[in-house]
């Protein structure tokens, strides 16, 4: 059984203008020790889907359905519909998170020692000094020099990269089996990004964690992920191993996304291949494929099908799935 198994997850927000289907029935599995990248642009639902089963979306106007099961020390548990107090015990213990902007993600008024210790105290009934030792151990592990002294420092006294290291240390305080990294390097400079990605990869090997890497950057994904899920307008549109996806992308959106990325490994060409049009508004989705208005290959599908019928996720080859009418009936 998979470590984390997401099945038909749906997230709907009630807004004054109507229901928004932010996540529209996604399913995926995450295995122990692997890195799954979830790639998509803003509004694709890549972040929301993970915040949803963590119970971190604002309550009230949000409807979450589907099933998310997690293997824990006490056997499998269903996260959707869990009591707030029970899901709290999972958060930060079995599943930990790091976020995009480490400046705003750390409380500006408390020392980092305080913030690390309370992460440990929330799940362990131990003396504060024990948690403090653990904090020093992890800060040293993520590369913060003079960890013991630095416990008293405040977030604003660290650089952006160091803050993200502190966030990582905080996430690892309780030895989580899953680490969700939500755009962990987007706010950082490229040279710092390289450091942080390497750190995450090293720690993952050391602790055999599963990492869910949420990002919009296909460059980051290529170096870090084992498998990739591409999301568009709340749906999973392509899923494959990282090598397969970059070598043989199927869904025209994935193809376009790969073409849009400026690449330095290729000879200096003059133009990027852009995807025409704008990302869709989730309020105004038609019955057809959400990507159809921007798709350059929809004329290849007979009978205007792309505009009228939403395609299903179909298997292209072993472990490679794509949501596109182009490949219907062409698979083995």
């Amino acid at each position: 059984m998979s470590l984390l198994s997401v099945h038909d997850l749906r997230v709907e927000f009630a807004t004054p203008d109507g229901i928004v289907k932010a996540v529209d029935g996604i399913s995926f599995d995450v295995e122990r020790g692997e890195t799954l990248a979830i790639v998509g642009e803003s509004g694709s639902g890549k972040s929301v889907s993970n915040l949803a089963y963590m119970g971190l979306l604002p309550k009230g106007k949000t409807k979450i359905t589907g099933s998310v099961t997690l293997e824990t020390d006490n056997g499998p548990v269903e996260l959707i519909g869990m009591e707030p107090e029970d899901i709290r015990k999972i958060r930060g213990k079995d599943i930990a998170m790091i976020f995009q902007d480490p400046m705003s993600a750390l409380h500006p008024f408390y020392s980092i020692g305080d913030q690390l210790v309370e992460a440990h105290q929330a799940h362990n009934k131990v003396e504060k000094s024990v948690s403090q030792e653990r904090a020093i151990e992890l800060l040293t592990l993520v590369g913060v020099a003079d960890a013991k002294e630095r416990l008293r420092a405040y977030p604003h006294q660290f650089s952006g990269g160091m803050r993200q290291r502190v966030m990582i240390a905080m996430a690892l305080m309780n030895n989580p089996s899953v680490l969700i990294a939500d755009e962990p390097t987007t706010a950082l400079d490229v040279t710092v990004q390289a450091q942080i990605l390497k750190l995450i990869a090293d720690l993952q090997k050391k602790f055999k964690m599963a990492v869910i890497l949420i990002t919009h950057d296909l460059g980051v994904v290529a170096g870090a992920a084992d498998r990739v899920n591409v999301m568009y307008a709340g749906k999973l549109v392509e899923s494959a191993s990282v090598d397969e996806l970059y070598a043989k992308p199927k869904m025209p959106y994935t193809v376009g996304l790969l073409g849009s990325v400026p690449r330095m490994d290729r000879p200096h060409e003059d133009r990027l291949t852009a995807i025409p049009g704008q990302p869709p508004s989730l309020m105004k989705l038609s019955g057809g494929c959400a990507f159809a208005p921007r798709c350059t290959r929809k004329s290849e599908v007979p009978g205007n099908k792309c505009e009228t019928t939403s395609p299903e996720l179909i298997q292209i080859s072993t472990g490679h799935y794509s949501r596109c009418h182009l490949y219907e009936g062409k698979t083995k």
Partner: protein
Amino acid sequence: MSGLLAYVSRRLAVTFLILLAVSFAVYLIFAFLPFDPATLTCGKNCNDPGIIEANRIRLGYDKPFYEQYWVFIVGLFAGRNYGEGAAAIHCAAPSFGYSFQQHACVTDLIGEALPVTLALAIGALVLWLILGIGLGVLSARFRGRVLDTASTIFVLIGTSLPTFLTGLMLIIFVVIKWHLLPFPAGGYSSPFEDFPGWLNTMILPWITLAFAYAALYTRFVRSQVIETSTEDYIRTARAKGLSEGLILGKHTLRAALAPIATMAGLDFAGLMGGAILTEAVFNLPGLGRLSLGAVLDYDLPIIVATTLLAAAIVVIMNLVLDLVYAFIDPRVRV
């Protein structure tokens, strides 16, 4: 720590300069008002030019304006004599002047009124902070639920009822109709002499003032808490698995505290100028009553003194607030 000391002394020096400027401005304004201060010292139906001229010389109103101001400043530090010889009246330093209407040194008058207003303002502040922060946090936590609605009603009533009405209703119901409290003795007694009597005198004024402010603070705290709870670091706290109580009581409240402290400091400073209506309703001899009486009687020395005092309190409160800020927010401190 030496940094803190240097900072405070620097700020105090600035405060002193500001107060000097304020005192000069106040003096200037009253020097050019179309009243003759000497005539005013003589009372309403007085037209004896002899007394007026004698008072003019006694109080120094015969001298040019800048000289008067200088004498005033010197008096602040050295005390001052009014008149000469056996008939001289001495006001010890710091002398803010002499009130002819009240036949007393202004400093003594303020010395009597200040503790009353201080007791009123501090008591009310404590009460409204407890009530306002408590209700504000609770209604933010249970947003849209019964408790939130109930607190909204409280906010509406509290902000729309004028204090004199609240005060009168409290006297009528609590004291006169329901006999829950004995009828307070008139005036004000020090808590060090008669503590139960003091409590009995102050409790209704406190409630009256706190009622209006608590409503404002409930609304303000609620919006601050709700705003803070959308911050990224609150999401982090939740992702760490902290309990809702800890998130609210520690992470959210600490961040929401800074603007609340600012508001409380300025409101407190404002009240120290005198809660005129409340003091009037409960017959408390505080600063508000003193300055109101002074304004009605054109008692200039008192007006100058109370204006200066109010300015001093606002300036000093700002210093206190900056220090509180530094305590709350380490980014200001280090």
